[in-house]
């Protein structure tokens, strides 16, 4: 249960000064097009519109003074607890004050049911449970990442904010009389047992606003709950970690762009890997690094439609750079992702705030292994790869034969000079192995299969001779290095080596010894040409749990997985990293790769259950 000791509201407005919520205190809602982050104190602190990679309307998460927010909370001191409405992405926050209890239900509604549907709609229903609770609310939109206040006026008696081709209508029912002041819409009201108030933001982008009726909003809210439940009911998530797999699946679904099938690495930008530091990146792109995990999770969950859409999207997006592939593509499939800083304060003054991602221009060899593994999983699930895609995948394998000896930036996109990263080489082996397997099943042309096998053998010789340390008894981060890197665990996961074999068994022990902090793992400890330090990397810990299971060390694996699950936040979500000493979340949130790694580990251990 979270609490806020003091309230500093004036005339119904709720002020939180320039404080930032803990990343652990955030929950996500979404509609398959964009997402909103809601803090445990009831404030919507992040909302890009119309898509997840668009500029924001609310971004107080990145600049508490200028970012814009939607506050809704009791005016008296309160405690709050929350959960998702079971099997949905609809959030329920229960506020407890000295005088009563009230519940707020938040959703980005889906365009379900009849009637004219707003372009985007954020609905917040406030119900009195017991006693009386005085609420204050304030909608403070700022367009274009806080760059423009926009103008606010009344249209048909409804407050409307406009700016940058967008408009936000603040519709409310039984939620007090809205006042327009200094760029904000504010009001206050009270709840009693059985009362219900409703606030809906109808948002338009380059089109006229739809001003919904209360009945339509209520119906959409109910329809949204039903739609999520229907989706969740079709998922395959059996076993002891059913709840965690399903919640991760629901979080993943929020990161899937419904219009294209692409999957965002996270719905946020620049939540820092170190508070006050410069390790702040925009993750609102689809990373090929994640592709094998995405395909594995979607197929494992029984999301065959989403799996097919993702495969088609990736093959189409990478067509323009074929046979080379980029580290990441934009959600709409475009290849350019120019990086620039925004004039924002940054989360807890962590600067710069970046949009775009320069990693798009890096060379990262491991992605070819991820993509070929993804294609193998897709084909193995009885999907047919057509001739055009088959030809292209074969050309990708040919390319890997040519470029694997080159140094690259590695899975972690190190911004210094290129190196011969071990995991990159292992994944090149995976790429050629999967290509040969696809050829043997007739899914891709087999004309160069002998070359693929021969080059795969050369890669193995390279890794075994130059990427193993006798002193550390471990695969190392890079050739001729003594540094450690948790990403080599993926070599065991994707079949480069036997997880139970001598070298990987010793590597597991060495990684826990050198990079471990309790149940967590740092991804590496070596210099990466960036200032400052970072937290432990959550996906690496889940990879470790899975590889322990694959190595036959089930007891250790289950113990580790259960321990890691204990560090989810109150609604079952994870960020990219965790501070091992305080358990605070760090980095973008919620992070696809962390949830994908959880799904992968939990499903793998469930399958291997004795």
């Amino acid at each position, binding site marked *: 249960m979270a609490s806020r000791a003091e309230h500093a509201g004036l005339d119904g407005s709720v002020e939180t000064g320039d404080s930032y919520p803990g990343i652990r205190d955030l929950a996500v809602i*979404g*509609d*398959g*097009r964009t997402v909103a982050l809601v803090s445990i104190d009831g404030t919507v602190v992040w909302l890009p519109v*119309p898509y997840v990679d668009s500029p924001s309307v609310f971004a107080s998460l990145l600049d508490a003074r200028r970012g814009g927010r939607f506050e809704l909370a009791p005016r008296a001191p309160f405690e709050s607890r929350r959960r998702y409405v079971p099997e949905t*992405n609809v959030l329920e926050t229960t506020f407890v004050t000295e005088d009563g209890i009230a519940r707020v239900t938040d959703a980005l509604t*889906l*365009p*379900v049911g009849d009637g004219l*549907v707003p*372009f985007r709609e954020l609905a917040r229903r406030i119900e009195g449970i017991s006693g009386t609770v005085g609420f204050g609310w304030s909608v403070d939109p700022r367009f274009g990442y806080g760059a423009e206040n926009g103008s606010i006026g009344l249209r048909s008696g409804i407050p409307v904010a406009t700016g940058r081709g967008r408009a936000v209508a603040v519709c409310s029912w039984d939620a007090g009389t809205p006042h327009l002041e200094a760029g904000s819409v504010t009001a206050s009201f009270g709840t009693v047992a059985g009362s219900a108030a409703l606030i809906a933001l109808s948002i338009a*982008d380059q089109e006229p606003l739809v001003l919904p009726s209360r009945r339509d909003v209520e119906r959409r809210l109910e329809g949204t709950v039903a*739609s*999520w439940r229907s*989706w969740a009911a079709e998922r395959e998530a059996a076993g002891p970690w059913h709840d965690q797999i399903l919640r991760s699946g629901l979080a993943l*679904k*929020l990161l*899937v*762009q*419904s*219009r*294209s*099938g*692409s999957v965002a690495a996270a719905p946020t930008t620049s939540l820092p890997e170190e508070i006050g530091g410069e390790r702040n990146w925009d993750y609102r792109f689809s990373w090929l690094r994640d592709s094998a995990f995405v395909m594995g999770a979607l197929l494992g969950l029984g999301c065959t*439609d*989403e799996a*097919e*859409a993702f495969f*088609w*999207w990736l093959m*189409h*997006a990478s*067509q*323009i*750079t*074929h046979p080379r592939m980029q580290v990441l593509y934009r959600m*709409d*499939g*475009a*290849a*350019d992702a120019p990086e620039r800083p925004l004039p924002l304060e940054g989360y807890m003054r962590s600067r710069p705030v970046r949009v775009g991602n320069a990693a798009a221009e890096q060379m990262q060899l491991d992605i070819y292994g991820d993509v070929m593994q993804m294609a193998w999983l897709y084909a193995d699930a009885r999907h047919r790869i*057509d*001739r*055009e895609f088959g030809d292209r995948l074969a050309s990708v394998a040919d390319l890997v034969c040519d470029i694997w000896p080159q140094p690259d930036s590695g899975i972690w996109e190190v911004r210094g000079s290129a190196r011969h990263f071990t995991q990159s080489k292992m994944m090149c082996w995976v790429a050629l192995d999967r290509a040969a397997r696809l050829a043997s099943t007739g899914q891709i042309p087999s004309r160069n299969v002998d070359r693929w096998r021969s080059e795969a053998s050369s890669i193995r010789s390279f890794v075994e001779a130059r990427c193993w340390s006798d002193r550390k008894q471990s695969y190392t981060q890079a050739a001729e290095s003594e540094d450690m890197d948790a990403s080599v665990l993926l070599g065991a996961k994707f079949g480069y080596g036997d997880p139970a074999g001598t070298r990987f068994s010793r590597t597991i022990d060495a990684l826990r010894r050198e990079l471990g902090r309790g149940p967590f793992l740092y991804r590496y400890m070596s210099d990466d040409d960036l200032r400052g330090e970072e937290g432990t990397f959550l996906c690496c810990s889940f990879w470790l749990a899975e590889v322990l299971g694959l190595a036959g060390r089930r007891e250790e694996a289950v113990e580790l997985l259960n321990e890691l699950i204990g560090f989810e936040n109150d609604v079952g979500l994870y960020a990219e990293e965790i501070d091992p000493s305080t358990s605070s979340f760090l980095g973008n949130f919620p992070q696809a790769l962390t949830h994908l790694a959880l799904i992968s580990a939990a499903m793998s251990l469930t399958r291997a259950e004795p």
Partner: protein
Amino acid sequence: MTIWGALAGGFVGTLVLTTMLRGASELRLTRIDLPFLLGTALTSDRKRAKALGYIAHFGFGFLFASGYFAIFWAIGRSGWLLGAALGLLHGAFAGSALVNVLLPLVHPRMGDSMSAADSVARLEPPGFLMTNYGRRTPIVVLIAHVVYGAIVGGFIALSAT
């Protein structure tokens, strides 16, 4: 000026337009593939979609050539230059409204700005000026349509002589 000239121009113009777009795709300038976009509206089988898409594309080629003919007939003038001007307008309309707005509305497998979590799109939408398929797509599409228009205009003018 005869309708047969327009149809002949439509056939040759579509042939050239399709070849230009395919060439631009092979040169990695764009990912646009109009026959594929049209064909996948009818079937999810990629191979069949391309075959059906080419037929549909030529059908539209004839349809637009007939439209050009109607305009030339109404103004009493024709020629390759006038055809090129109409082609420019045609290309701009295709990029900004026809393929960007109207196609996603009727295409059962294409996402649009309202696609949400209760649906799964199999085909990415083109975006304004079809830039989702590559930044150079609008230029390629405009040039191809100008050439199409010039050919149709030229054939119609020739059929008058």
